[in-house]
């Protein structure tokens, strides 16, 4: 079932003389339960695209539909509620509140929705179990490793059962072992909970965990490949091929 429909969106910066087309006429669709990676070099517009989807930024032209709701039309309270109820965020720098324990960080997402404390407790424990962080729940962010922090952030993102999970370079600040662990959890959430994930990355290894990869160059959709039935290893090789084709700094970033 089609969940997200992006229709010819554009995002321009600057004025007439120095116009920058950060996102230039991009269209694609994401089905429910899909795990999509968006790849591109620095400055290719992938983060701007994610920001537009997440309503953190506004598009200059055209529409983004989530289900049958046009999220570019949302304003004020409706916008806040949309973000709160429909989206889950995972950031490169974790964005955990350093004053709260892991448990409280995860619970906060539900507290904001004014759920009863008992329900919160059950939900937090379940999410922690799914992400393998039960033993660090009482710790503070400064007592955790990067991988643990990112899994706590992920737990916070999924606990509200959002329609869409948006991850911006989730492995960017992690070592390869933690990154692998996290991505396996993403796959688990994707298959077990039927979570829809859109992940922005410039790392081919990270992208190879997705079921579909979109490539962006200079604000335009450059290519798109699906994993299909191939193994992750084969998919990774395919991605590397496209990256080579893209050329330039994406390969540098590997």
């Amino acid at each position, binding site marked *: 079932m089609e969940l997200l429909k992006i229709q010819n969106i554009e995002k321009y910066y600057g004025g007439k003389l120095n116009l920058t087309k950060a996102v230039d006429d991009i269209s694609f669709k994401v089905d429910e339960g899909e795990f999509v990676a968006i790849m591109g070099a620095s400055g290719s517009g992938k983060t701007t695209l994610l920001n537009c989807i997440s309503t953190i930024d506004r598009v200059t032209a055209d529409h983004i539909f989530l289900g049958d709701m046009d999220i570019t039309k949302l304003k004020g309270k409706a916008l806040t509620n949309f973000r709160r109820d429909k989206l889950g965020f995972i950031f490169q720098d974790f964005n955990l509140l350093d004053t709260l324990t892991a448990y409280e960080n995860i619970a906060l997402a539900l507290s904001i929705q004014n759920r009863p404390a008992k329900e919160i407790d059950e939900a937090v424990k379940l999410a922690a179990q799914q992400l393998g962080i039960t033993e660090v729940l009482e710790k503070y962010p400064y007592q955790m490793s990067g991988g643990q922090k990112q899994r706590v952030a992920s737990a*916070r993102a999924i606990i509200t059962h959002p329609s869409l999970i948006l991850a911006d370079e989730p492995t960017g600040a992690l070592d390869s072992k933690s990154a692998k662990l996290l991505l396996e959890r993403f796959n688990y959430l994707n298959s077990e909970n039927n979570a829809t994930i859109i992940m922005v990355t410039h790392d081919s290894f990270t992208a190879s965990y997705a079921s579909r990869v979109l490539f962006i160059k200079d604000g335009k959709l450059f290519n798109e490949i699906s994993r299909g039935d191939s193994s992750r290893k084969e998919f990774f090789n395919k991605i590397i091929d496209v990256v080579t084709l893209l050329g330039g700094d994406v390969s540098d970033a590997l």
Partner: protein
Amino acid sequence: MLFKLSLNNIRRSIRDYAVYFFTLIIGVSIFYAFNSLSTQAAYLRLENDEHDMIELLKDFISGVSVFVAIVLGLLIVYANRFLMKRRNKEFALYLIMGMSKRRISKILLAETAMIGAGSLIAGLILGIGLSQLMAALTANLFDADMSAYKFTVSSSAVVKTGICFAIMYVVVMILNVAVIGKCRLIDLLNSGKRSEKIKHKKMWICVPVFLISAAVLAYEYFVVGWHMEKLSRERFALIIAGGAVCTFLLFWSVSGMILRIVMSLKGMYYRSLNSFTFRQISSKINTNVMSMTIICLMLFITICLLSSAFTVRNSMRSNIEKYCPADFEVTYSEKEGGETGFDGIPVFVDIEEMYKQAGCDLTSNMEEYVHFHKYTDPELTLESFCGEYAEEAKGKFPFISWNSVEEIVKLSDYNKVMDLYGRDKLELADNEFVVICNFDNALNLRNAVLSKGFGIKVFGRELVSKTDKCVDSFIDISAQHVNSGIIIIPDSAADERFASVDEFIGNYKAADKEEKNVTDKIKREEYKKAYDTYIEKYAEESGHAFSCGIDTKVAISNNAVGLGAIVTFVCLYIGLIFLISCAAILALKHLSDSADSIERYEMLRKIGAGEKEITASLFRQTGIFFIVPLILAAVHSVFGMKFACFVLGAIGTEGMAASVFITVLMILAIYGGYFLITFFCSRYIIKSRRS
């Protein structure tokens, strides 16, 4: 170039500097307004005595200004160091770009100079406005006429303010340069990366500490509020020190406990942003226990000062109405022999006769008067008055001179005086006496004696007390209720051989206030003439110790009003400075915390917290941070004021409710004002940068 850079720096960090700047302006304006008081007063129509009082006021304000300057200086140095710390990153950037420390120091000098000059000018302008209001207050306090008043600027106060603040700014500059000279680049760069370590205090330490400090405070409240007469100076100092320590421990333990308590209320803790809000508050109180203690104690002093300020003044005025019901009183007493001159045998001399010898008429210009004398019985001292109770009483009241002779007045004289005053008269049977007294401490002792029902022996005659306690009354006019006891006996019991102090009390023949003042002047000159030309010589020739005194309502009320005004001004001055200092420190701390938390709020927005919830959370944080020290200070003050009432007992505590009301208003205005500014500035700081 450097100038432009520093100007831009200030403009950019205006949200950090706003509270600092605001505080400087208020500090300067208060400093100016109080120091210009004497100049303002020159334009008010005042009596001579009052001009003396204004001079005294000027001296007091000058003295207090030194103290105030030190407090303000410390505040400025503190605030400045605090703001410097916030800019470490910026200095690091300059150093990395290759700017020398000398040049950074120069930028800082330029900045301080600009802020200093700006705040000084703005503060003086505000101060000049404020001082016109102060003139109205002065006029009100001195009951003076303001019709001749015109807008004035006190150049001496301007110069004084300028010099004082210039010195403070120079000190700040020197400190800044010293800090820059000492700093290391690596520390500057790392200063922003403070890893927030949450230290949990152990519950089993917090709870006992809380209980003990609360119990000690309660005990101290009890002693200060209900057993104040037992307080010696040493014990009082101990209580003050204990109170300060307990205040600290209370904040310390509460900061550890409150979070645990709130956390255990899961339904509340996990609602909306509460978990975030409480964590913020708890970490804020945790890291600021010391400064909150100091602020709480300063607020406590402020509340006590402000409420006493107006109480003293109000009660002085109402006391004069009550305890000075006649215009004029002259007394003369003479004693023969004795070692100190005060323990000799009284010799009676008629004061009216003495005036006549000097060629003056004591009864002139008098509408009505009473001329009478007191008696003393050498056998009747305070000790013998107490009878069997004396031994017990000596233990309870160690500071009373027990062998002083009691003053005695016969009933008909007393009733004549009461007639003059328009107060209730007394009736006595032949074997009865009455003690009149209204000084609280003496009252306690005498009531204790009278309730036991002992009789006394006066001039060889046994008398019993008509009442079982003292009658609330007095004979000599004064500004307060300070009659420590006069014994009234039936006329038949009086023995003229023991006549002692001669007194003359009267009311002027005068239609209005103006005329009364004129008469007062005449009568006082007359007294001076009589004293200089005859009384002094007469007494010298006799070789006896003597005392001769004049009291007039005009002089008493001018002095009392002036004294009340001085107390009011000094309390107001110190109270206001303390209040803005406390509020400014809290505001600066909170603002810097908000600046450190920008990312946290940004994150809350990303996970879907609404602006309304974020603002509510910020409001709660600001509110609790401001109100916690105020609440404890208010509780302290309730008992502190109870004690102050006791100390001020002699002056009286009439009008306490009104002055507490004024105090509350002032605290609401200034402290509340700082709270609002802090809240709105914080809201601006954490405002979303995106949409």
